[in-house]
């Protein structure tokens, strides 16, 4: 059965690739061993800046798709079942957890919103560090601080996102092909109104 439209899958694919380039170039600037291996600091900085700047582009293009806008609305709205899902996670109760998921469970909703906000913060602080001619230099130091620590948090959250995807082949198939097995949907997203 249908889960994601072609447009939505391209939004995910474009964002994922830009994110990978952004994270890998960041690691080459940041992890001493990688920095030593790669060198070329000015070039790596360029790659990082442009992949970061373009990161919101797939999302913005996706807004032209009706399906994408509809899913954004689902991600935005939290019902009573989402609170139950979250409290099931707090109680470490996996069986109650799956029962209270719509098309997106509350964890996916929180992830989407937080990553969206975090990417905007990275973009803002990144621009301050980039355009020192437009912003006072003290802002640059403060932005570097937030950019560094948020990068660490974002990296861990992305690892969690990838780890959960690796554990669920059917969820990956949904994002790759657009369709999922109805049994899986019934199990994992019982409140999804199809």
């Amino acid at each position, binding site marked *: 059965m249908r889960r994601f439209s072609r447009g939505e899958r391209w939004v995910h694919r474009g964002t994922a690739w830009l994110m990978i380039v952004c994270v890998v170039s960041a690691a080459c600037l940041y992890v001493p061993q990688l*920095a030593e291996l790669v*060198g*070329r600091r000015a070039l790596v900085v360029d790659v990082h800046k442009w992949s970061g700047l373009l990161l919101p582009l797939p999302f913005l293009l996706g807004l032209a798709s009706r399906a994408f806008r509809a899913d954004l609305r689902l991600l935005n709205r939290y019902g*009573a079942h989402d609170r*139950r899902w979250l409290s099931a996670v707090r109680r470490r109760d996996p069986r109650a957890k799956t029962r209270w998921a719509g098309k997106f469970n509350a964890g996916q909703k929180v992830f989407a919103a937080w990553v969206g906000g975090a990417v905007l*913060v990275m973009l803002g602080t990144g621009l301050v560090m980039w355009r*020192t001619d437009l912003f006072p230099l003290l802002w640059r130091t*403060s932005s570097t601080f937030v950019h560094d620590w948020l990068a660490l948090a974002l990296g861990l959250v992305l690892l969690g996102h990838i780890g959960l995807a690796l554990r669920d082949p059917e969820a990956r198939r949904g994002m790759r092909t657009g369709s999922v097995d109805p049994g899986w949907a019934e199990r994992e997203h019982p*409140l999804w109104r199809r």
Partner: protein
Amino acid sequence: MTTEHGDAAERGPAHGRDPAEGHAPADGRSPADSRDPAAQPEADGTPVGRRLVLGTLALGALGVAAAPPLQRGLERFLGAASDKDPTGLTQLLPNGGGFRYYSVAASVPRKSATSYRLTVTGLVDRPATYTLAQLRARPQTRLVRDVQCVTGWRVPDTPFEGVRLSRILDAAGVRPTARAVRFTCFDGTYSESLTLEQARRSDVLVALRMQDKDLNHAHGGPVRLYVAPMYFYKSAKWLSGIELTDKVEPGYWERRGYDVDAWVGRSNGRSDDPTA
């Protein structure tokens, strides 16, 4: 469970009974049975997603505003922690203590004790070329100061040892027309410069050792510049050339916006504690 009461209240008096909740994990019903017919349509509900996005943005802005004191506290804590950390993991944290490797070149050739040369040229009476052994044979000066990078990290009490730059300048016989010193590096790209007055300071070294070990390649070995009172980008790694000039020529990062007179705490818009 307070959430259960909250949920019941929201759904109104008609749904005071909730068959699925609370006992559900133990009763073994299939997930389909537990679908609450009273649940709201998926696209309704509170716009918490938008609030989370805006909340994250607000926290980010708050973080930027509160960064200076937060950063000082964290640096102090992580600096102390990294001294006692045998795994080296704290080094990977932002400002987690220790040095960061920055190179602007694609690759940096390695120079050994036999292949290394340092030239002194420009407005001098006696141009010179030093081997590593010749530099080692000259009187050595050891300084222990904090290292402060312009990007924020600081390494406390780091010993550097080498030949005072002023001695090398004196030996070359600086001409009266010289006003500045330009430094070039065997990575082929980096350059730095100081005024003659700055270069003659007693805390500016042609450094051969760091942390009481011979300088390794990653730290700019076998020979680097060490300008104790300035941000660390002034302390050019892989030093290969000293040239006396009639005016200051901005170096690599200085052509990209950094200050030429890079006193720690009094330049680049920063307010760090001075290192000298």
